[in-house]
């Protein structure tokens, strides 16, 4: 507990404390400055897009990995974790290699908002896949066979039988991805740049404020991010539980 305090709790308390150094007004002024609002908005919208896209593709990838048979499946399966293992700065460089100014296919999204979304897609890819996969493996296929024998088409079986069973896992994975996305920094450094009002994510806003010695603003936006992450985790946890109950 002492270790946890020294490394994590006391420093986080310091952030909270310093953000209110100039009173509630100071806090509010810091987080409602146009630059801060633009950064927070970009972060939230980009994260939301990322959660939806990776929610769909993550489920699809999990489905293909569990239900499909093709050569190299186990290799693909272990590569899913690569974004977790790869340092975030390398992740950014990686995307820049294909989608940057020197792109061999002529697609250049560097320093645009598309780049922000792509980087976040990359780093949060494994969450939904890894949440859905075990549930799909455990899923009893008898239900699906029963539905099929009663004349349900494949789409109906998926929508009425499989999807409801997967929903809690998709939501849980999506929640983790969301929390990760709103705080992401390393992968954005090289590909998104740090253009205020355009590609400056909230984490970059904090970083700039620290660099220019504006500690109160940095701490205030940090508190907003922290609160957002915690609230999101709670909401997604609650949704996931509710979906679980609904199924029973």
């Amino acid at each position, binding site marked *: 507990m002492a270790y946890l305090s020294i490394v994590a709790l006391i420093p986080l308390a310091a952030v909270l404390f310093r953000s209110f150094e100039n009173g509630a007004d100071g806090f509010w002024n810091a987080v409602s400055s146009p630059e801060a609002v633009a950064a927070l908005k970009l972060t939230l919208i980009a994260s939301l897009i990322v959660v939806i896209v990776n929610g769909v593709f993550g489920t699809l990838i999990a489905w293909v990995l569990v239900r499909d048979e093709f050569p190299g499946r186990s290799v693909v399966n272990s590569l899913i974790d*690569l974004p977790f293992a*790869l*340092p975030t700065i390398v992740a950014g460089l990686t995307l820049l290699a294909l989608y940057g100014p020197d792109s061999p296919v002529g697609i250049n999204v560097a320093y645009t908002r598309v780049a922000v979304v792509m980087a976040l897609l990359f780093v949060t890819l494994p969450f939904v896949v890894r949440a859905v996969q075990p549930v799909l493996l455990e899923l009893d296929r008898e239900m699906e066979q029963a539905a099929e024998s009663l004349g349900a088409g494949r789409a109906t079986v998926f929508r009425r039988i499989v999807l409801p069973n997967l929903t809690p896992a998709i939501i849980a994975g999506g929640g983790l991805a969301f929390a990760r996305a709103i705080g992401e920094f390393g992968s954005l450094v*090289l590909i998104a740049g740090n253009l205020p009002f355009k590609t400056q994510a909230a984490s970059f806003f*904090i970083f700039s404020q*620290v660099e220019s010695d504006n500690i109160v603003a940095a701490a205030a936006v940090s508190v907003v991010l922290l609160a957002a992450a915690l609230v999101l985790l709670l909401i997604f946890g609650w949704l996931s539980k509710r979906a679980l109950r609904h199924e029973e």
Partner: protein
Amino acid sequence: MRSKYLLRFLALGYLALLLGIPVALVFWNAFQDGIGAAWAAVTTPEAQHAFYLTFVMVIVAVPLNTIFGVLAALAIVRQRFRGRALLNALVDLPFAVSPVVVGLALLLVYGRRDGWLGQWFADQGVQIIFSTPGMILATMFVSLPFVVRETIPVLREIGTEQEQAAATLGAGPFQTFFRVTLPAIRWGVAYGVVLTTARALGEFGAVSVVSGKLSGQTETATLYVENRFQRFDETGAYAAAVVLALLALVTLLAMNVIKPKEAQA
């Protein structure tokens, strides 16, 4: 049947565009000017120092977090005390915190000018921020939860029967831990250690805030990649990135070797 191939194509296509092709291209770019140029780029004094510093981060942060992780997992699973649920929740906190916020948080406690304890440490002649101790703290912070998270389920799974048997036969708490508990949870702990190492190797944001980025002094391998890239030394950036990517692949391999064993146990 056609829908099956369509799904496979969509899933693999998405992975290739987002993951496969970009990673392959990094390797391609690094060796663009030949293996010799890439080798020369990662053996410059600055590059060597950066990798050495990353190694220091790992060698300090991983053992400390492993010891803490096992102790915390034991406390959460085996003991009943007030605040147990709170500890369980707080351990996950670093996952929900942006790396930049981690850096800022450490700055506000240990920084010389802005920190609560910074001046005291400075009076003792210890500089934490913009120096190695601060970077180690940042690394410890972000990689804190892994061992705890991986050990708790295994600890729940094995139950207490064997430990009780050992205690009945006269083993002390230490003997019980080292001869009964630790061997039973070793794969869970090992998996946690692998994840901790991967995170410690790759941390960028938190370290970036507290390091001061002095080339050749407080520059880790990830900061080195950024620095090289910003200075238009693409071969240097890609070559160092490839080294880090190879380390990530080794980590991935270790994860895959350990995981099935954990499942068998």
